[in-house]
């Protein structure tokens, strides 16, 4: 039975077409996934279906939910439908919840808006719904007391409180860890089966799509380029973009062999405690141990991965290694010299590339000034002609034209910004680069290019790096050795392939089991 029919939907914002001729059919009790890269129009399709298009957007065509055209429905009637006939789950569960209301009250609110029931009854039903979504905490708790996965369960409970026919989930697991992601996807699948609702799943993660969706629609530049039942589509991808997308997700890069065995970075028994809230007025502050006796070494030219879920201490370790924060115990040495804030000669041996391609540059400086910032570490920084040459070389190394030097950062795309971040790290020719989730925010095709770039740089000169990521498949392809971190401790380490093929620690095993797998694709290799 058809639940949702989108017919020839086109949306323009300020004269720019953002959706063109979208046709989509969705059946009840099925999961339909829309996938594509950022800016392809996935979220806009979801918003149009909810009748939540941004101001100034002009829509044409039809969106029929059970025979009602959303585009022709006036706003008051849409308000009655939202939350009632259709529910929505957002990407970021923290911002989707009101921080000053208890979770029970927020779920009950949805019920109170749509039905004439007493408060007590609404709260009882809310509590039952929270239990149904597998939340094991009291409804009187506040959002900040919950973990990311628990919050997402609350958001889902709000969305399904009225048992809508259509549930739209926009990147519902993107902000979550792999093990949590697996559980949330399980929950969504269970709800679809139990309630017989249609789930429109918007996600960029092809492994998730291939895992859970009954039908897949692939979007590019505001159009659906390919659509079909999941097994059929995976077996025979007709559109080259679909193939390129899947190939880029499964991208494996060729790393040159590690040149030597000379140790470069040594972290020995490092402990990092953060003070937490005082429990009594004059008592000592309790501490939270973010790094618990962490030891690791990285040899010259060695590529080491560090995986673990959010809050496990990955970022704390990065900051400790870079000497940005003091440690409470243990030593961190580079070439046998201890790391400290003031030692410029030592610091130029280490650079860092951060996750957020938007936040890692000062928006008020030009590129030449941005990427030469580490020159501050040199006693005799190049000036005039030499400086210009160094800038041109750094830009060339990361595959950007020399005229990029005069531009501001907002003129670059996310992938280009990450290239600039790498250029900034490379300009003082460090021995070690720390990639802190450096490709996590990038689209798959751009990510594949940046990973290729990193492998290229390793071929040009021996470059050691610590590659921190929650994405196991990326770590698997770009590192020689991998460390697995849990709750401030390194629980497993070894040669990457060995660890992935034969994980020893139960935590590593659960991580690998939870990660959604891309199906094997026969022609993936020759598509890019």
């Amino acid at each position, binding site marked *: 039975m058809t639940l949702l029919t989108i017919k020839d939907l086109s949306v323009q914002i300020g004269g720019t077409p953002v959706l063109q001729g979208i046709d989509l059919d969705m059946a009840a009790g099925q999961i339909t996934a829309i996938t594509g890269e950022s800016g392809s129009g996935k979220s806009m399709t979801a918003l149009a279906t909810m009748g939540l298009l941004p101001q*100034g957007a002009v829509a044409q065509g039809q969106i029929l939910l059970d025979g009602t055209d959303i585009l022709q429905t006036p706003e008051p009637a849409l308000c009655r439908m939202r939350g009632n006939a259709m529910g929505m789950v957002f990407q970021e569960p923290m911002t989707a919840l009101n921080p000053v209301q208890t979770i029970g009250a927020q779920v009950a609110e949805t019920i109170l808006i749509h039905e004439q029931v007493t408060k007590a009854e609404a709260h009882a039903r809310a509590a039952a719904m929270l239990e149904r979504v597998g939340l094991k905490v009291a409804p009187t708790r506040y959002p900040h007391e919950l973990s990311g996965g628990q919050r997402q369960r609350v958001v889902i409970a709000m969305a399904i409180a009225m048992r809508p026919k259509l549930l739209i989930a926009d990147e519902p697991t993107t902000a979550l860890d792999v093990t949590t992601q697996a559980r949330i996807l399980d929950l969504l699948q269970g709800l679809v089966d139990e309630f017989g609702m249609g789930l429109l799943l918007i996600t960029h993660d092809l492994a998730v799509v291939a895992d859970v969706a009954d039908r897949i629609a692939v979007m590019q530049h505001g159009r659906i380029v390919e659509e079909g039942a999941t097994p059929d589509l995976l077996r025979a991808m007709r559109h080259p973009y679909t193939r390129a997308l899947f190939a880029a997700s499964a991208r494996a890069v060729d790393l040159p062999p590690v040149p030597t065995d000379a140790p470069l970075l040594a972290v020995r028994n490092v402990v990092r405690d953060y003070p937490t809230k005082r429990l009594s007025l004059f008592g000592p502050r309790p501490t939270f141990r973010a790094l618990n006796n962490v030891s690791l070494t990285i040899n010259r030219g060695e590529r080491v991965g560090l995986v673990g879920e959010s809050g496990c201490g990955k970022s704390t370790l990065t*900051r400790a290694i*870079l000497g*940005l924060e003091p440690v409470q115990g243990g030593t961190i040495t580079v070439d046998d010299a201890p790391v400290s*804030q*003031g030692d*410029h000669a030592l*610091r*130029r041996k*280490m*650079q*860092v590339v*951060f*996750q*957020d391609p938007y*936040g*890692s*540059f*000062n*928006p*008020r*400086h030009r590129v030449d000034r941005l990427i030469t*910032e*580490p*020159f*501050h*570490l040199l006693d005799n920084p190049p000036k005039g002609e030499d400086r210009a040459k160094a800038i041109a070389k750094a830009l060339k190394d990361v595959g950007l034209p020399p005229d990029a030097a005069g531009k501001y950062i907002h003129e670059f795309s996310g992938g280009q910004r990450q290239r600039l*971040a790498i250029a*900034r790290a490379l300009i003082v020719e460090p021995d070690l680069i720390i990639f802190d989730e450096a490709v996590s925010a990038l689209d798959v095709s751009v990510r594949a290019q940046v990973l290729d770039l990193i492998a290229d740089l390793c071929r040009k000169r021996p470059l050691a790096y610590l590659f921190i990521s929650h994405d196991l498949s990326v770590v698997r392809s770009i590192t020689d050795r991998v460390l697995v971190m849990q709750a401030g401790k390194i629980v497993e380490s070894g040669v990457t392939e060995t660890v992935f093929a034969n994980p020893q620690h139960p935590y590593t095993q659960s991580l690998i089991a939870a990660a959604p797998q891309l199906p094997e694709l026969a022609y993936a290799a020759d598509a890019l």
Partner: protein
Amino acid sequence: MSRNLIIGAGLTAFFTGLAALSFLWTPYNIEVLDIPNRLLTPGGAHVLGTDHFGRDILSMVMMGARTSIAVALVAVGIGMGLGVPLGLWAAARRGSLLDDLIMRGNDLVFAFPSLVIAILITAVFGPSAINAIIAIGIFNIPVFARLTRGAALPLWERDFILAARVSGKGAARISVEHILPNIANLMIVQGTIQFSLGILAEAALSYIGLGAQPPTASWGRMLADAQTLVSIAPHVALIPGFAILLTVLGLNLLGDGLRDWLDPRLRVVRT
């Protein structure tokens, strides 16, 4: 460019222009009393009429603009010059004892009603334009310090600051190179608003006789002198009143317009 910005900039430019012109030329010398021609209505030889001493009101307004703008500008300069570095310093040492000392010091100044303390200062050190400047300036310091610290704190968490720290730059250098350019918009806007508040404060102090002393002209004093004559010659009170009103309005519109113009994220499309 928004309508606010154009109107605000226009009004501000007009009164600043009047003040600047007064250095070169005024229609009459305001230090010369001309009792026979007192309380003339606008029009004729005296465009805006004369006051109870027969002084030309247009010339008085021009000279008064000079006093008001000079006092407010220097006061804002004091507030910014001390407040912004204090705020940057507090943000750089966030969470430390120094941060607490600076911010609690600010709270202390904030705790007193500004005009009351200004009256106290001028009462102790004697009424003069300089003391008015100091009094108004002191109360601008915590405004800028708090705003700077508040705007700088989230910036310190950004990755580009971490990148600068990885490049070995110290807190002072990062504050000047990275933090300051990113909060400059905010400071310009707040500066404009404080400027308008400064003009109001100056007018209030001279109104109660604690600002610039005669024969220096000031809008507040003109108002005070004219208040008993409102029923006989309302224009004598209305004209300086409008001068204050329009300058403050112009500066506020300018601040508003500048904020929208400098920060495109806040631009609202009016339909």
